[in-house]
């Protein structure tokens, strides 16, 4: 499984995901600079976390017009596997590859902490190595992660099994008390209808290196490797 990690000006989790893919999972992994206009043959492309273009205007709004994005949209529309983590998720919703929008946290605070997320669909390319309804501990680190979508498209996503992760309590309770950022229906991660594009606010690459005690992020990487 050959992986590409896109680097935008202001990406800052690009090295983390590169390290996990290349050194922990031993996958051939390459950098993709945002100025490039063509995409090499990849089996997985990652839009990493960070603050592309300083989050100016809106998080992800300017990155969606980076030269590489045309090739990435074409790749995704052609069935290519694409994931966006945190700022990468923001870029995916801005570019229309995923539905909805990511807004300022209602608290107006940048939130950086471990949260629990419940696996809502364990039958996807991205989650097939997670037990159904299992709870993963994964850190979030964002100021603009409040997921918004109109009721109609929320309904469609629920019907299609596109919601992959919801913020929850330690026993999987999905409620307002365990919603760190006011996301609609506690949504932490979704995929597109075709099931090849995934975006999530939590950072699985920050909990996938055995040098650290928490390894729940590995289930997501193992899922992708398993179904490749």
């Amino acid at each position: 499984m050959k992986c590409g990690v896109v680097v935008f000006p202001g990406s800052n989790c690009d090295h983390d995901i590169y390290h996990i893919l290349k050194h922990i999972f031993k996958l051939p992994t390459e950098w993709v600079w945002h100025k490039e206009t063509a995409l090499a043959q990849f089996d997985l492309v990652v839009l990493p976390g960070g603050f592309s273009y300083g989050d100016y205007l809106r998080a992800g709004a300017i990155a969606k017009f980076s030269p590489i994005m045309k090739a990435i949209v074409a790749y995704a529309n052609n069935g290519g596997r694409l994931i966006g983590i945190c700022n990468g998720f923001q870029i995916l919703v801005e570019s229309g590859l995923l539905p909805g929008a990511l807004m300022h946290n209602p608290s107006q605070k940048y939130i950086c902490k471990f949260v629990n997320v419940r696996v809502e669909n364990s039958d996807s390319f991205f989650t097939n190595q997670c037990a159904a309804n299992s709870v993963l501990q994964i850190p979030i680190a964002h100021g603009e992660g409040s997921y918004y979508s109109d009721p109609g498209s929320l309904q469609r996503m629920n019907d299609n099994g596109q919601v992959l992760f919801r913020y929850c309590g330690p026993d999987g309770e999905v409620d307002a008390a365990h919603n760190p950022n006011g996301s609609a229906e506690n949504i932490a991660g979704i995929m597109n209808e075709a099931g090849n594009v995934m975006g999530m606010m939590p950072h699985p690459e920050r909990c996938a290196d055995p040098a650290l005690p928490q390894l729940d992020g590995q289930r997501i990487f193992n899922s992708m490797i398993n179904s490749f």
Partner: protein
Amino acid sequence: MMAKIHINFKKGVLDPQGNAVQNALHDLGYKEVQEVCLGKYLEIRLDGVSREEAETRVREMCEKLLANTVIESYRFELSSAN
């Protein structure tokens, strides 16, 4: 020509910054404040386009980049003055 563009959240979309400003105004004693919408304001200077072209192109800029129409609405005025 100058385009003056206002971008605000659509009705029903939570505006946490507007709410925080509203609370601050209440704390200062401005009890008459009913609602605060905190949006963005841009001034864009245009050159070499007719008014009709400007109208079309500024709308396009709003749709493509300046506003996220999932959550935001926009309006703009064109003026020949600076």
